[in-house]
């Protein structure tokens, strides 16, 4: 089978034209960014063409007063981190470094090491502009930190792996960077005593867990001790790299990480606050169809039965993004 064509529009209008043309021709597209997450999140996808939105790579604005930003879906998490960091802000989601785009990370659904503190990545998206499979454009959400007007289509589209809509532009909530960060290390057994950690994780094959605290002079938990910031950051990056390299991950209530038979968070590394661990291929295959009790294994073996109905609702008559759902 021939490799699908790569359509790479430079702007929203061009993207809409390409989608309309594809819809008219009955041609199947799958939106993507730089295609860094497809192996994991859409390995079965066989579109007739990719629609890469990596060209929509402009940071339009960063509002320090309201702590929000407007970015094209093709902006990378690293670019946003640098621009926001200059203003004392950061995104409330910390993604593995895949070289991909923010649009791809939010659509994936990708792991974030800040989920345990700020909630999952989708909680960081206030509003977004989307392209539906018939080429029409919609805007969901509102540019404020709190809105319940209309259906929350933003949540429905995020995590859909681009099969309901293609993301053009995101309005994201930003958070103040930790004002007095304190990196520390210690035993997992007493981590519950730590005062409101922002990050709490175990890097792969490490003897101790690591935490990032804020605004306290010392860890205040048995066996925990301060460490240099660069050591803590290197440990964090090692865990992110492990998530990036693993074909899947398991999510479960944090208290169950240690109790789940077959999971060794010490070896694999784990986000102890968010309750997530990277999964190697053998374990992923074993658990995809029958996950341990009360656990979610991603990517899932099958799509939600609602996908096809929602695809039809989003763009009636047009070939759905990604082709017919599986």
């Amino acid at each position, binding site marked *: 089978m021939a490799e699908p064509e790569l359509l790479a529009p430079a702007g929203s209008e061009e993207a809409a034209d390409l989608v309309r043309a594809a819809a008219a021709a009955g041609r199947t597209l799958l939106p993507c960014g730089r295609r860094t997450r497809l192996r994991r999140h859409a390995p079965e996808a066989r579109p007739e063409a990719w629609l890469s939105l990596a060209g929509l790579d402009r940071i339009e604005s960063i*509002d320090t*007063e*309201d*702590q*929000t930003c407007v970015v094209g879906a093709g902006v990378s998490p690293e670019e946003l981190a640098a621009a926001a960091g200059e203003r*004392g802000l950061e995104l409330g989601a910390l993604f593995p470094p895949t070289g991909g785009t923010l649009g791809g990370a939010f659509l994936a*659904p990708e*792991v974030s090491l800040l*989920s345990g503190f700020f*909630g*999952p990545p*989708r*909680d960081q998206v206030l509003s977004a502009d989307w392209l539906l499979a018939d080429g*029409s454009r*919609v*805007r*969901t959400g*509102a*540019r*404020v930190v*709190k*809105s*319940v*007007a*209309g*259906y*929350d289509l933003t*949540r*429905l589209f995020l995590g*859909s*792996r681009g099969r*309901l809509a293609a993301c053009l532009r995101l309005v994201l909530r930003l958070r*103040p960077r930790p*004002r007095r960060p304190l990196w520390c290390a210690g035993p997992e057994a007493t981590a519950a005593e730590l*005062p409101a950690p922002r990050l709490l994780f175990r890097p792969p094959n490490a003897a101790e867990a690591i935490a990032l605290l*804020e*605004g*306290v*002079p010392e860890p*205040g938990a048995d066996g925990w001790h301060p460490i240099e910031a660069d050591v803590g950051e290197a440990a964090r990056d090692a865990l992110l790299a492990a998530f990036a390299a693993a074909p899947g991950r398991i*999510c*479960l*209530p*944090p208290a*169950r990480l240690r109790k789940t038979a077959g999971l060794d968070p010490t070896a694999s590394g784990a986000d102890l606050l*968010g*309750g*997530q661990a990277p999964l190697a291929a053998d374990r992923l295959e074993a658990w995809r169809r029958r996950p341990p009790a*009360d656990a*979610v294994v*991603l*990517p*899932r073996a099958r*799509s*939600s039965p*609602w996908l096809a*109905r*929602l695809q039809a*609702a*989003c763009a009636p008559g047009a070939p759905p993004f990604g082709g017919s759902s599986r």
Partner: protein
Amino acid sequence: MSSAAAASRRGRPLAAALAADLRRIVGHRRVLDDPASLAAYESDALTLYRCRPGAVVLPGDRDELVACVRLLHRAGIPFAARGAGTGLSGGALVPPGGVILGLARMDRILELNPAERWARVEPGVVNAELSRAAAPHGLRYAPDPASQAVCTLGGNLAENSGGPQCFLHGMTAQHVLEAEVVLADGRCERWGGPTLESDDLDLRGFLVGSEGSVAIASEIRLRLVPLPEAVATLLGAFADLHAACEAVAEVVAAGLRPVAMEVMDRRAIRAVEASVYRAGLPTDAGAVLIVEVEGPAARIPEEAAEVEEILERHRPLRLERAANPAERAAIWKGRKGAGGAMGQLAPDSLVMDGVVPRSRLAEIMDFVLRVEEESGLPIANLFHAGDGNIHPHFAYDARDREQARRVEEAATRILRRCLDLGGSLSGEHGIGLEKEELLAEQFDPPTLELMRRVRRAFDPAGLLNPDKGLPLPRGCAEAFHRHRRYRDGRA
């Protein structure tokens, strides 16, 4: 008065055979269809909209609820779930002849798991009850709407309710892990999972805030959060609203993360102090700002001092810190009782809900004051300042048709201004019937049409809480007996 409006006032009784079938499911006394009982269900807490249902059915568990839904679906009768009726947007009403499914009897906390910090509840559990049950385990349920002493968690889910603490802890959507739902045709599904990272299609997240029009939650798993180790509650009194709002903006910009930042204006303060909710608030102040910080004991004194330093820069008339839990409780009693206190000022009230970007808070409050001056209507203000979520409160007499008209006009002006400033029509009350027309000013036609199509994907027959949350087809608003108190001349 149109015939549709007349019909909705009288109500349209349910067919006797259908009522009998419903009684067989829930028991004779659990189907209400006499006019006196139905009168209590003809509106929620927004009394501007009234429509008498054909019947009210009170299922006691999931199986009864499912059986009722299947029956109503087969009969083609519109229906809506209702919790405690504290909604503020006219969300839990049905068109004439429709059925209200009152879920207040489904009030069991089914499981509380302190180790994993979650609780599994039926939808009729009262919000504050869950925190009470979790407290012995050092936990609480964070979303705290002002009506938390009576409102139900099922209603909170439907509306994505907020409250003061949502500034730090997030809305209901950030706390619902999983829901067992009953679809419009009676089928049951489970949406979500044990953690918030639960699915590829986030049906759980889409359900929260869908105003009861996508599915009815028959069981909910909710996240619990630890009780804070330390709390500091500050009360700043300012000469005017503008100064209080500026102080809020500076606290946010400084990167501080209080759990709540609440503002009350002079009218609200005086209403509280004249009521049973009296909290010792300064009645000479133009506004008070309540800021609460919570967290590790090692951090809180310093964090509170930083907040105080910022508030001092805005020249407060008074600045106090609650010295003990009793003083803290009194402050919150005053804030949360303010809505009730203002209910004593006039026979009717309209609590508006709009949102602006946080940097525009002072600007929108200046506009509210202008509307007050130009309309001649007294407006009290109490709001979640940290989120930019305003709640202008109109106390009025709906028997005065002209006054009621002016109230609605003034409220609409304020909401339009919220949109002009880049905000939203609702932060936590929902759209319901109240703002369905205005929604077309927040979203463009393709987006609204998409919302309608998605809704039909979940409820093709359009029976589940129909005509709410989206602009109504022509004629439907009339069927809901809109503004009847001043339109039908019953003043």
